[in-house]
């Protein structure tokens, strides 16, 4: 092996272990330590629908610049158990390293019941073709053959030393420290400053001095050992100076923050993966601060709170949020596919009654239960048509963390202004990923409650308030339950101006037309920079069209392709309904190659583009194996299109 050039601050790191063994907090410590040292990170979490025992792993990138996606290759794989090695050792780059426990070397593939039959068969072929047996040592030998550095760490011995030092009687009580031993070894190997890790441990285990102490001690031993074992590893992490503060958050947190900033004061939910994360975050932070004491009415500064209600099912979740919205409260519910399926009737009711209701839809792999903990952008058409009959709604789809914050905020403005349900689409790949991002400037955001009836309204018996007044354009001023002078009625039946049931055919037409005219108004008023965004040269021959979380890997792949001189454009659509038809036509009309990039089977947005504009995609790059797109595979697939070597339909398959 020739000495490789040192690669500073451009690392793909992975840790794996059984679910429930502390892998998640270890990845958190690794990421926080990197962020502490001024690096930018992007982390992706993969796990089974399982509480304990099945394989889970975190893939994390650390870089000097902002990172927006994961990559296929792994430079450092860290683990304290066997299954992770069998599953991921082949992803490690030739110049990379594997941190492992040598005492487990004799464990056979057949000893691991959680490895799927298909993968086991594939691994056996791998071993046979190399003339190897099927133990962990054989797996490592295969890696070593191609140059991978092996970093044996005696996890158990280190644990025993910690137990002695801290006078712990049973090793099982401190078994979770193996995670931090793996991290310590990683940082030793990478030559990163240990202090950042100490600080990260203090943050994660705040107030638990002994836990911090033991973890720091274990990590330090592994750090020193790895450093001495591999003094010249080609990947290196160095602390860098940041001049601006950065946020470190998940997509779920980003969405929750946007909603709170937008004045949401009521949220319902029924437990479901991955949507519950947002509601739990809100529940933990239910007491809010109000700013601008000059702006807030006297005495109300400390009175802000968000009420989060766990309901008996998603039907109750959507209807309860709607009831709250009728009182003037900014109310929402958050769910995922199966729960959203139960909300159809409630969405129709909110639409015919012109109730500002926000639904945050965290997409996951369907249909039915599908793969609950895996990724997909499969609900675009479903969200667009959810509910029987024809009922207008606004659809916003966020592509990154900042868009999640903004759309969480804007959803309420649009719901209020156009008095209809707003479905905010987020996908699991965004919701469950975390990253460091520059603190976004949100100073442009203003709350818009739309047309509302003022307190002293002068309505009387002779001149009653009409909730669905047809006299002043499609939007009728809204009153809230409990507001004097504004008695109104709601019904799921077609209704008259007061809100009473009608089957009058002429009135029916007027009400249908009123409801749909609001969508036209929304299409006219919603700013272009919310509707969509175009990246790259305007005259690109090849234009990629996408939505949602694929934005991250696309931009990372494009940065590489643009640097190579490729003339590529990327149209990121954020407002799905009302569809920005004219703008999309303008961007796509002249492109020779139009490429749909979506994490679903059917190229759903491509279908909508064709329906609305008549423009067909020439190619599609799709992925539906439940794993998010990496920038690596997108780079390859896009390159094939530009070189005219791609089939009309490319299906991406990477991911464990």
């Amino acid at each position: 092996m020739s000495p490789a050039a040192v690669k500073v601050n451009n690392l793909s790191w992975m840790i794996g272990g059984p679910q429930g063994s502390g892998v998640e907090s270890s990845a958190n410590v690794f990421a926080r330590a990197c962020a502490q040292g001024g690096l930018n990170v992007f982390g992706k979490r993969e796990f089974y629908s399982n509480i304990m025992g099945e394989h889970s792993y975190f893939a994390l990138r650390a870089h000097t610049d902002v990172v927006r996606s994961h990559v296929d290759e792994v430079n450092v794989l860290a683990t304290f158990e066997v299954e992770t090695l069998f599953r991921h050792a082949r992803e490690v780059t030739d110049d990379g390293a594997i941190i492992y426990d040598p005492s487990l070397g004799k464990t056979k593939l057949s000893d691991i019941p959680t490895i799927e039959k298909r993968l086991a068969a594939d691994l056996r072929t791998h071993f046979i073709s190399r003339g190897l047996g099927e133990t962990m040592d054989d797996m490592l030998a295969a890696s070593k053959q191609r140059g991978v550095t092996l970093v044996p760490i005696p996890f158990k011995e280190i644990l025993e030393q910690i137990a002695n030092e801290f006078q712990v009687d049973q090793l099982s009580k401190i078994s979770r420290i193996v995670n931090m031993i793996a991290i310590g070894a990683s940082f030793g190997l990478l030559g990163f400053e240990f202090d950042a890790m100490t600080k990260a441990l203090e943050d994660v285990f705040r107030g638990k001095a002994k836990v911090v102490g033991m973890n720091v001690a274990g990590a330090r031993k592994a750090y020193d050992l790895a450093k001495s074992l591999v003094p010249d590893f080609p990947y290196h992490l160095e602390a860098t100076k940041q001049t601006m503060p950065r946020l470190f958050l998940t997509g779920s947190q980003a969405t929750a923050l946007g909603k709170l900033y937008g004045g949401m004061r009521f949220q319902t939910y029924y437990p479901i993966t991955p949507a519950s994360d947002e509601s739990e975050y809100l529940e933990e932070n239910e007491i809010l601060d109000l700013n601008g004491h000059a702006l807030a009415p006297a005495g109300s500064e400390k009175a802000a709170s968000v009420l989060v209600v766990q309901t008996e099912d998603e039907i109750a979740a959507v209807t309860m949020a709607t009831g709250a919205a009728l009182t003037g409260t900014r109310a929402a519910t958050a769910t995922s596919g199966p729960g959203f399926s139960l909300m159809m009737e409630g969405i129709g009711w909110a639409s015919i009654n012109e109730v500002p209701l926000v639904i945050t839809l965290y997409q996951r792999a369907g249909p039915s239960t599908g793969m609950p903990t895996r990724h997909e952008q499969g609900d675009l058409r479903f969200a667009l048509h959810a509910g029987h009959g024809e009922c207008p709604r606004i659809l916003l789809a966020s592509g990154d963390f900042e868009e999640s914050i903004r759309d969480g905020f804007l959803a309420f403005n649009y719901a209020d202004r156009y008095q209809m349900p707003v479905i905010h689409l987020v996908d699991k790949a965004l919701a469950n990923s975390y990253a460091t991002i520059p603190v976004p400037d949100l100073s442009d955001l203003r709350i818009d409650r739309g047309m509302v009836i003022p307190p002293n309204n002068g309505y009387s018996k002779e001149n009653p308030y009409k909730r669905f007044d047809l006299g002043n354009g499609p939007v009728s001023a809204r009153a809230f339950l409990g507001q004097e002078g504004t008695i109104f009625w709601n019904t799921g039946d077609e209704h008259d101006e007061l809100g009473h049931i009608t089957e009058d055919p002429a009135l029916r037409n007027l009400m249908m037309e009123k409801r749909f005219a609001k969508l036209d108004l929304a299409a006219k008023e919603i700013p272009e920079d919310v509707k969509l965004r175009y990246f790259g040269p305007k005259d690109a021959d090849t234009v990629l069209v996408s939505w949602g979380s694929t934005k991250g890997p696309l931009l990372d792949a494009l940065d590489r392709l643009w640097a190579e001189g490729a003339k590529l454009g990327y149209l990121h659509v954020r407002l799905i309904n009302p569809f920005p038809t004219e703008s999309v036509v303008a961007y796509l009309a002249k492109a020779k190659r139009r490429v749909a990039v979506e994490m679903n089977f059917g190229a759903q947005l491509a279908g909508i583009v064709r329906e609305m504009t008549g423009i067909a995609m020439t190619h599609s790059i799709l992925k539906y194996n439940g794993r998010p797109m990496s920038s690596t595979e997108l780079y390859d697939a896009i390159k094939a299109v530009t070189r005219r070597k791609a089939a009309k339909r490319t299906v991406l398959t990477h991911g464990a």
Partner: protein
Amino acid sequence: MALEQVLKPQDFATEVHNDWCPGCGDFGILRTIQMAFAEMKMEPHRVTIVSGIGCSAKTIHYVKTYGVHTLHGRALPYATGVKLANPQLTVLCLSGDGDGLGIGGGHFVNAGRRNLDMLYIIHDNGVYGLTKGQAAPTLKLGVQTKSLAHPNINDAVNPIWLALAAGATWVARGYSYDIKHLVGLIKQGIDHKGYAFLDVLQPCPTYNDINTKEWYGGEDRKDETTGRPMPRVYKLEEASYDPVVHDNAEIEEKSEQALHKALEWGDRIPIGVFYRNELIPTFEERIAKRVPTYTESPPALQPIAGPNGEPLTDLTKLLNRLTFKPA
């Protein structure tokens, strides 16, 4: 309201044409709601009535307060949302027995777990009227009302039992032809601190030809000496029945008593309050323990924007926890 106006029951009536069948038991419930509101000096804009789907659900269009006619089976969660967002409103919730105990049965159970301060009335006639008389959850096994092809193959659910099991803290039954008694029950149900459930026996003159007004009134079994009908319905309060839980130690005894009483059916049908317990904290009180400002500043009454739309929510504390500052 600047001056206290005295509203009469008819002031709570709308001009909407009422399309219930003549003789419908719903008329009695509508009338008693309006009478109760007038007697309680309710301000119309402080009351919201939420209903599900069916003949019972149309009631809200005939009452001049806020009326929210929702989805089949879903009146309770809509009402819960209204009440939680603005607990200062008086909230009534109306369902039919198919609406509330069939399709909406899950919500019935979970409303009991919360003990939110509102009154839930089930218009109980044993049939799905608006869809032409199919058997509903309170129709007894083997009973064949007139549009059924066969006797009812399902047994009936007992709404009183179910409400008690779910945790309702005021459980009562009324009869829609005993207006005076029913007004009293509705007033008590509204006044009750916590989740009040009122089952109202309500003949469907079109589709339930078994449990008719005449049947409830005992016209098929006249007293041999007086020749007067012997009504099946009798009042618990006239039978020295005490439904009140005065002390938590009494919960078991009073629950057992109520369950026992609720089994009576056929020759003698009790109406009145089966169970009352104001010692269980309401959902509002439970929230206020977590969020001390909830009572004065519930979600609906919180300011969220300044005069020019400036967002008032201060995220500083939350963002600080997620921020890495330059070293």
